[in-house]
């Protein structure tokens, strides 16, 4: 694609891409940066997309950029407030331990149902059915990284809820 054609594409879609970025990240300055980054990424792969699909394709790239920004900001906020980073979660002392007894399984099942989507299905498969991340990713048609993040958050929420009920530390 020639530079002049790509410029025309930017002119046509930049307000749309900005809207997507702004609605997701909620900050105008960040949305401006992410809009630029969206078009920089799009330029590298523009030949893989048909013209009639530009709109959802650009929206997908913009959502990815927004996701990376929000994830990083959220992770920094969680660890700064004393929460555990994804890599530092201890292997023991969590919801998995309760799955060893019938009463524990029942309790975990209730807590998992209360989580709501997008966590319930992934958490059920992970904690109760002992599926691997890869299996869950395939069954739910979600990227592995997304499943990993959702399991991590589900674990945090479950741990907090169990702590409030008087289980674990």
């Amino acid at each position, binding site marked *: 694609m020639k530079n002049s054609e790509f410029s025309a594409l930017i002119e046509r879609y930049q307000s749309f891409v900005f809207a997507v970025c702004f609605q997701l990240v909620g900050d105008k300055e960040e949305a401006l940066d992410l809009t630029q980054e969206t078009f920089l990424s799009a330029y590298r792969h523009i030949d893989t997309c048909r013209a009639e699909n530009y709109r959802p394709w650009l929206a997908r790239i913009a959502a990815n950029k927004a*996701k990376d920004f929000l994830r990083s900001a959220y992770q920094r906020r969680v660890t700064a407030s004393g929460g555990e980073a994804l890599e530092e979660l201890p292997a023991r002392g969590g919801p998995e331990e309760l799955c060893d007894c019938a009463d524990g399984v029942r309790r975990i099942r209730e807590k998992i149902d209360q989580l*709501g*989507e997008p966590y319930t299905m992934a958490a059920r498969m992970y904690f109760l059915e002992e599926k691997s991340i890869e299996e869950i990713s395939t069954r739910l048609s979600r990227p592995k990284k997304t499943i990993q993040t959702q399991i991590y958050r589900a674990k945090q929420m479950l741990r907090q809820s169990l702590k409030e009920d008087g289980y674990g530390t």
Partner: protein
Amino acid sequence: MALNHLYFDSGGHLTAKALGDLASGAPIEELARLEIAEHLSYCDKCIKAYTDLLCPQPPVDLTQLPPAQVTARRAAREGRVLFLQRCARVGFAACLTLMVWLGGLSQIDPETLPKVDMHAAGEKISDSLADFSQQISDGLDQLFDFSFERSFKS
């Protein structure tokens, strides 16, 4: 517990409320926006529903975006740098392979060679390649900017 059941249905997809709140600019808490962004980044069905909601013109006041030509030029420049870096790495690897093959270095006993910090050496080579391809790209930039401006003026 997160109150996200309003935004996701039992199948894990975004509800009409989620898409509506997002498209109308309603306040959504940080974690919910992250969850929505994560879902939109891979779900064809929901991204289509969301983009359809934003037609024909999204309800956002658009200011301060740089001119499209500036963004296009920057995208082209970054694309060239990446391409040249790739070519430089391939070329270097090919030269190294030829040297080893023609110089008979593969027959030397590695135990007799002096110890070298391969990681530091590799980083130094990568930095030099990056500088080299950046210099070539800067030179090409001057050439392309000249022809770019000419094509816009004509």
